[in-house]
């Protein structure tokens, strides 16, 4: 079953393009932001978060890849073939998830390495005088955590797409869920407790706490707790997808 999913994934040309696109876009946005970031009078930003700014766009492409992995089967009607060959549906979803995770992991490692390298090269020149070594604990955590973050985003998108089936609607739901939570939270004025709670449950905001290396005390969650929130979202989405997969006609 795994090899069937792997064959499907690698023979689709869009898979390679999307993975390459995710890597390119992440590194490009990170490099662009890093080149333009200067220290202000208030202080320098978080070096890891600034270097990894490209994650915001890279995750969108990863989400599209994950949604297409299952929605394409529905739109071409190949899902009938898949479920005829393998009547047990949830293991099919699990195999897809495994292949997807492996692909996104590999692409994520390249993208994160590229972004951190851009930060290492350009940020010390822009005023980040004590730029921590890339091998130090927090920086490693930020880098590795971001790779995990991208994989979790892919799983979250896969789960939602399995539930929704239509590619366009699924992408709208996933990107909406990710980007609109912090947008809406930003506009609730004067209610710091409500904003903190909303930040704690938002998949993208909480998930990206894994990138934080400074100001940890002011965050509503610890970095790993934040990534855990995203993991919960991904698990919930996969569960929802599995249920719908199980109960509805193909």
């Amino acid at each position: 079953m795994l090899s069937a999913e792997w064959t499907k994934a690698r023979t689709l040309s869009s898979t390679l393009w999307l993975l390459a696109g995710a890597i390119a876009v992440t590194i490009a946005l990170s490099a662009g932001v890093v080149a333009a970031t200067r220290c202000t009078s208030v202080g320098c930003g978080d070096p890891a978060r600034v270097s990894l700014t490209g994650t915001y766009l890279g995750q969108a492409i990863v989400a599209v890849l994950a949604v297409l992995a299952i929605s394409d089967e529905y739109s071409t009607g190949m899902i009938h073939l898949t479920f005829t060959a393998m009547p047990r549906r949830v293991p099919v979803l699990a195999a897809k998830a495994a292949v997807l995770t492996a692909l996104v992991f590999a692409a994520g490692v390249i993208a994160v390495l590229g972004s951190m390298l851009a930060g290492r090269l350009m940020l010390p020149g822009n005023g980040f005088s004590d730029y921590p070594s890339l091998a130090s604990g927090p920086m490693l955590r930020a880098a590795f955590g971001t790779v995990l973050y991208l994989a979790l985003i892919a799983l979250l998108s896969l789960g939602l797409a399995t539930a929704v089936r239509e590619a366009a609607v699924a992408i709208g739901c996933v990107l909406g869920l990710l980007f609109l939570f912090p947008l809406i939270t930003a506009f609730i004025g004067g209610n710091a407790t409500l904003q903190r709670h909303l930040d704690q449950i938002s998949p993208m905001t909480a998930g990206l706490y894994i990138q934080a290396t400074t100001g940890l005390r002011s965050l509503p969650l610890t970095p790993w707790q934040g990534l855990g929130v995203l993991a919960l979202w991904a698990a919930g989405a996969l569960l929802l997808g599995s249920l719908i997969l199980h109960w509805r006609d193909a």
Partner: protein
Amino acid sequence: MTELLRSEWIKFRSVRGLVIGLLLIPILTAGLSVLTASGSQCGWGYQTPSGQQESGGCSAPTGPGGELVQDTFYFAHQPLTGDGSITVRMTGLASSALQPWAKSGIIIKANTVPGSAYAAMMVTGAHGVRMEWDYTQDTAGMPGGVSAATPRWLRLIRAGDTITGYDSADGTHWTKVGTATLAGLPATVQAGMFAATPSDQVTANSSAAIIATGTFDHVSIAGNGTGGTWAGTFVNSGPPNPPGQSGPGGFQQTSTGFTVNGQGDIAPDVPGNNDSTGTPISHALNGVFVGLIVVIVVGAIFITAEYRRGMIRTTFAATPARGKVLAAKAIVLGSLTFVAALIGCAIAIPLASHQLRNGGNVVDPLTALTWLRVVIGTAAVFAAIAVLALALGAIFRRGAAAVSTAIVLIVVPYFLAIALPNLPTVLSDWLMRITPTAAMAVQQTIPRYPQVPAPYGPSWGFFPLSPLAGFAVLCAWTGGALWLAAWLLDRRDA
């Protein structure tokens, strides 16, 4: 063409998903706007000496121009009836953390009620001598700071409704700085010295309460009613003080003149400024981005569903002029989403404003014309984005590609500009000018004031382009995409 429009309309309304999506636009836009507005709060509270809790919502007075203003300062004044003048020499403006717009000088004000008309000549922390009147007007006088070695002479002359400001370095050669016409100025006004400073925006400790002290001598005031004792008033447009506590500030008579110290600002209330209380109207339309995602999905699916089902061949067989089909789709989609968004915004603004006021927030007042521009403008933005998604769908022929491209072009730039506080301003400005998100400028209702320090970012309702320019950028994107789509439709197989 009429037949074409009719057939596209039938196609739209017969797809259950598209109709549901269209209905979701006003529901989600208005719903989420009201929901986030209910979460917003603004208020003050203190404990009286007797142990009671007093609290209340935020409030801000409106100036003569109808805009929300901050009017907090310490006023050492005398009444002045009819024409007259006031002249001082200032030898210092000091503060524990001197702000660029800390101000002290002379002022002629209709009365001591916050929000009343005034004209003032002042020295500032970093912007030299200024003449300001009626909150929004500000003119530069002599540059350079004030000190004992570089004193500044300031003069205000009142003639009826007109107040003219002069400055001088030596007290003999005067330069006119500006003329203020304050319509309806009462016969008896208050004239005197004042001091105020906005809260600390220079260092990171922005909650520190600081005071500015102005040093005056050679004070002379002429006119009916003057010549008596100076009265000191803490003019306050902010939260009230607990009883028994007079506001920060005061004035002392020294051997040579006076010192006046005070806190606050006399300026328009600008959202995002540390001391502001007003909420821009864009905060009553927070649901717009949810609505936009629905609009994008509806617009893309309207054409990509035909490709998926193969129905596009039937459509093009019935109408070989493919550009016309695209145009008909655009017209039907645009009109439907315009109406849906119009309803959504028209409901969202009053309901959300009501919820904001319930939470103690002060909603910036709008003229009827501005309100119309915001509502109709936002609905037009929805329609243009729907057509952009339609064009992208025709270009890519796949719903996933069209939706993700549209979201990356429209939602992600806005998100990056708002949610990343450390993003360099040059990047977020550039994002707000080039991408279709520039059209959100239709929601900007408050102009930028050079004399009020504030972030002036999109999260506070400020955009780099004017409403019309921003909408033009979106139209350029949509038009370009439509043109490319029509060209590709003609050249490619269905």
